[in-house]
């Protein structure tokens, strides 16, 4: 295959879009990259997944550094949840040896459908709770108090500081563990579940959840990438323009995210989770019952 400026430019452009939306939503962008590489460039799935994993690190570094600089990322919370997500990723790799893939796909599809529905019905909740001070007046749980997980950030769209008290650490840690399992088992980043867990169960405003997840997904993707690298599955000439594109897209995305209202982010998020749930359901039905539904590129 000739390595032409046109080939590099199209790969770069697709990656810019993935990096941009990944930064807006606190996810890796692999859900955009893998279908693009497979469908547009007819690349083998393994090469596409490896390139996507490395690009998740690129977008996490670019987005994460910006959100850390703006103090949108809650470092303590992110590092607390990383314990569960990395253990989840490790146990997901072990579970993959024993569990049937279609069962896990169905379970994650159901979880994503539920999260999508709750993100949509609570889409106005963030702005209302910020306005009423609800995020800052909740009672912390024991873990949150002991580890001082609560935080604050400056919301540019509302032009005001937002304080929040973290609670629900148990369920948040459990969902983060599941996000890690999904990552180890299914090769997805798990950012969607991490953002949902923080926002839905831990009293963390959407933007702080996005910023914290953005930093966290880099570690999960790094572990997977090391294994792909050692197995010789990373194709450097594909990875290079993809990583450059996601870095550029994520850099722009981080500048835009804090200027948007949370309701906009949650609408996009709900659609994204619905799309992911559908993709998993399609794969599960094909694997178990040989029912072929349109894949919508996922």
């Amino acid at each position, binding site marked *: 295959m000739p390595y032409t400026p046109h080939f590099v430019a199209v790969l770069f452009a697709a990656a810019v879009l993935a990096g941009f939306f990944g930064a807006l939503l606190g996810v890796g962008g692999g859900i955009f990259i893998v279908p693009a590489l497979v469908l547009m460039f007819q690349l083998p799935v393994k090469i596409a997944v490896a390139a996507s994993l490395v690009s998740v*690190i690129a977008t996490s570094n670019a987005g994460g550094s910006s959100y850390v600089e703006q*103090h949108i990322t809650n470092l303590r919370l992110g*590092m607390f949840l990383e314990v569960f997500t990395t253990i989840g990723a490790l146990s997901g790799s072990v579970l993959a040896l024993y569990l049937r893939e279609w069962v896990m796909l169905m379970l994650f599809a159901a979880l994503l459908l539920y999260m999508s529905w709750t993100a949509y019905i609570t889409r106005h909740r963030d702005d209302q709770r910020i306005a009423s001070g609800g995020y800052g007046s909740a009672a912390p749980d024991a873990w949150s108090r002991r580890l001082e997980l609560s935080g604050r950030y400056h919301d540019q769209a509302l032009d005001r500081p937002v304080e929040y008290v973290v609670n629900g650490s148990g369920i948040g840690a459990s969902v983060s563990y599941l996000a890690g399992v999904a990552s180890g088992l299914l090769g997805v980043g798990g950012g969607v579940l991490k953002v949902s867990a923080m926002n839905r169960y831990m009293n963390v405003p959407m933007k702080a959840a996005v910023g914290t997840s953005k930093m966290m997904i880099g570690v999960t993707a*790094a572990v997977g990438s090391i294994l792909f690298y050692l197995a010789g599955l990373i194709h450097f000439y594909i990875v290079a323009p993809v*990583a450059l594109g996601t870095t550029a897209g994520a850099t722009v995305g981080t500048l835009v995210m804090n200027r948007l209202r949370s309701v906009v982010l949650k609408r996009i998020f709900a659609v994204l989770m619905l799309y992911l749930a559908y993709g998993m359901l399609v794969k599960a039905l094909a694997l178990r019952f040989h029912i072929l539904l349109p894949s919508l590129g996922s």
Partner: protein
Amino acid sequence: MPTPPPNSPRLHEAPANVYKVVYSALLWGMVGSTVLFALGVLRALSQHLSISLGPAPHWGWTQTWTGLAHLDPTALMIAATVLLILTPVARVAVAFAAFAVDRDAKFTLVTGIVLAVIVLTVILGRLGLH
């Protein structure tokens, strides 16, 4: 700004030096890998290469260093990929060190566990778990 109720904890963030070292680790990892990737792509385009989608060639460290000295595109992209992959791990390591310097025992332990799990996963991966 809402006033936290009496049972609310003080809302304070991780120490500024932890934010600073984490930001620096992520930023320099991103800048370094971006420069190397960009150089690699430009060199590859200037040489009108054809690429194969077969298994990636294995390059040892000596070959990579020699390639870097000659601005070989493959060597540049390998170095960029390694730097990129190690950046989040380095971020956890510097946070571990920063929390230790601050004598924050709880978060030194938390980041230490994360580092240990990463190392364990890589070891198990090398043993063929994945």
